[in-house]
């Protein structure tokens, strides 16, 4: 519980807007407590930039408790930084040493264009969900929740897949900028539940088609996505996606 303070350099990607040329700029940040979160360190940098008359670094963030999926920084060559199963907002400064230089970049993927600095546009993910990431049930049509018992293992597996926060770290980590882990998490979540059965085939075909349309790359099974996922979504979901896709393709009209 005792606090240590440190002085650091942060090398941050600055880019005025989607069309501008970007570049790294290095800043000094002093008196950083090891109890701070990473984003609180960024707050201190921005406060300094504002009072000095400069332009603060734009970055996406909201809940700061690791669940909204909005924060998205590529820190020292890793999406969300050095800790396993973690989001940028939950990364704390005790992960770094006094005098260290921290390199901070945005998610890099053609399908996630840069908005400004470290902020990117991830609306491609919403469009993939629009292509079929749901169960078509209108409000008011539901039967009693307990009329459909679901095997605990399937329910647990569906939940594990549904934990995806849609942050895009999987895409940022992948050398091909593939969105397969994100897509497979949603396909698995819904395919593992009986409620998802009626639309199982069309869902996987439409979602994959949309993913391709958005320009995400292909999966070459390197596993970088799984290793970086803050919610530890398993790559086994990609295997399930491939099985679902193959089955749907073979039996499609």
């Amino acid at each position, binding site marked *: 519980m005792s606090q240590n303070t440190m002085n650091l350099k942060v090398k941050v990607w600055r880019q005025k807007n989607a069309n501008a040329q970007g570049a790294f700029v290095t800043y000094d940040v002093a008196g950083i407590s090891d109890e701070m979160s990473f984003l609180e360190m960024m707050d201190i940098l921005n406060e300094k930039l504002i009072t000095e008359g400069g332009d603060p670094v734009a970055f996406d*963030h909201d809940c700061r408790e690791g669940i909204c999926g909005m924060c998205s920084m590529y820190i020292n060559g890793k999406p969300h930084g050095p800790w396993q199963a973690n989001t940028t907002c939950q990364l704390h400064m005790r992960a770094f040493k006094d005098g260290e230089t921290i390199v901070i970049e945005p998610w890099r993927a053609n399908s996630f264009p840069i908005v400004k600095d470290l902020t990117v546009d991830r609306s491609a993910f919403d469009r993939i*969900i629009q292509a079929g990431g749901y169960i078509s049930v209108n*409000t008011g049509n539901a039967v009693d*929740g307990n009329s459909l018992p679901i095997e605990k293992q399937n329910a647990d597996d*569906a939940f594990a897949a549904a934990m995806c926060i849609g942050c895009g770290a999987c895409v940022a980590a992948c050398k091909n900028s593939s969105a397969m882990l994100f897509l497979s998490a949603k396909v698995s*979540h819904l395919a593992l539940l009986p409620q998802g059965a009626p639309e199982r085939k069309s869902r996987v075909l439409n979602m994959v088609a949309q993913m391709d349309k958005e320009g995400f790359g292909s999966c070459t099974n390197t596993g970088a996505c799984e290793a970086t996922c803050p919610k530890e979504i398993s790559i086994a979901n990609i295997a399930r996606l491939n099985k679902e896709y193959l089955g749907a393709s073979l039996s499609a009209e």
Partner: protein
Amino acid sequence: MLDAKIPSGKLDDKWVDYKGHCKLVNPANKRKMEVIIVGTGLAGASAAAAMGELGYKVKAFCFQDSPRRAHSIAAQGGINAAKNYQNDGDSVFRLFYDTIKGGDYRAREANVHRLAEVSSNIIDQCVAQGVPFAREYGGLLSNRSFGGTQVQRTFYAAGQTGQQLLIGAYQALERQVALGNVTMHARHEMLDIVKIDGKAKGIIARNLITGELEKHFGHAVLICSGGYGNVYYLSTNAMGSNVTAAWKAHKQGAYFANPCFTQIHPTCIPVSGDHQSKLTLMSESLRNDGRIWVPKNVGETRKANDIPDADRDYFLERRYPAFGNLVPRDVASRAAKERCDAGFGVGTSKQAVYLDYAAAIERYGKIEVSKQGLTNVSHEQIIAMGKEVVKEKYGNLFEMYAKITGENPYEVPMRIYPAVHYTMGGLWVDYELQTTVPGLYALGEANFSDHGANRLGASALMQGLADGYFVAPYTVGNNLADEIYNAAIPTTHPAFEEAAKKVAERIATLKNINGKQSAESFHKRLGKIIWNECGMSRNAAGLKQAILDVQALKKEFWSDLRIPGEINEYNPELDKANRVADFIELGELMCIDALTREESCGGHFREEYQTPEGEALRDDENFMFVSAWENKGEHEWQLHKEELKYDVIKPSQRNYK
């Protein structure tokens, strides 16, 4: 006196009768009716999905990059429903009763009863959408307990219930987007309501990427923008959560109800320093199994694990034997504050109490041993098995705690302290969730209606989805039925031009202050004033001073703010400044409200009004009403009252002993 337009008839029949008699809009006309929804959390996303399914033309707005980010996603513990799956005596009436009592008799009976009635439908709907609730080995839904109740009626998905429910609503919303019924405007912030002939007919929204101001028409406008807990700066809310949409509605004539009713949640990770940007909740579900305690001796220096039971004060179990660690939030928070103020606090700041899992780990370990029929099991093995069970139930919360504090909660007790979490106050709405501006509605945490002076755990998710899926589609439709003769108004109408001009002027004024201080620094100072004087306990002298302090802060804000960057570009500092300006005005109103409510009730604890045991002392004779404030200009508000009539429940002093 304000009229909430509560239908006549028996409490049990009101909603059924209302639905049976409300006006309908035929499908062809629905296609011509435009509905604007501001905010896409549980209330907004569910309303957008449900109204889209009905065939209305819906336009939804959120300031985040995707509707799936809304702060409902961070709700941990669960959602209540009167299913009585546990056969433990639950019923619609009991959920209704617990909610009214938990709210310290300051909520409206008819709304709360309706909430309890539709609670079961919510669970069914969510299951149908594929929300992966926790299940038992038999495949049926699992339940757990929450504070302020004696039944198990809380449905959950590990510690991520809000996430799963929001993703369900988000998917339903995106389905309507795909079908063309909903148009989604992400990274947009509503900056004003447009009124024509006294009715809400649209909004002015700022495209946060380009800075452009957009005009949008709607036959009805639904504010689903959540609560205003961030007025305190430090809260469990997301950084972007704000009062701006609700405040603009207020400035356009919507009354703001009970602004001082805020919820301080007892179990949050304590503040560690001035750098802190937000506080993190540790779910109330942890109070199911965890025991809360402080040392019996002031100046205790031993580590938590070295303090024997005899030297520990399990103060909630001591003071409230019937409910123990599961008393409602306001009661638990005050009790923790009382111990810390008396010098028994723990940790470096001494502003914390212990939440201890050692007993639960051992208990679960022993249960596992007997389940598996093992014999000759060592204590270490029992503890290891117990840890596994606790990990399955609360694993993600324990991990979060470890990341933030650097301590292992499986080995040492967690340190917790109360933090701002939820706001029961909000825009005043009638039974139909309509504000005092016709055509303008407020749903979910943005309205005030269901939780009185204190909200029970696992009820916010319930209310958000009840309003969005099951209430608004009927009540908004009832009023839209009268609008079918009115075609969409083009946004070239002078009212839209005038509103957009005003918004542009305000932004330019903010930008042109060209002072020295950041919006964030003003926000921090505002937060300190409100937390110190309008937080867990309040008194007249402090509130009067706080009003003066907030007024002075407002003056300084408008003369020394600095916003870097340009207006017509992506500029998060400009967005923040806009929000902080509104928080400052709200802060003043909160203190005025707290000052005029000369009683203690729920989360509103006035030091002058307490029982000899230190419990909240209500004054039903003089304060059995909702305070609804009308804005009359700078620093000026007029109080309107809605009398609260309890036809079914007899108010008494809340007793959790």
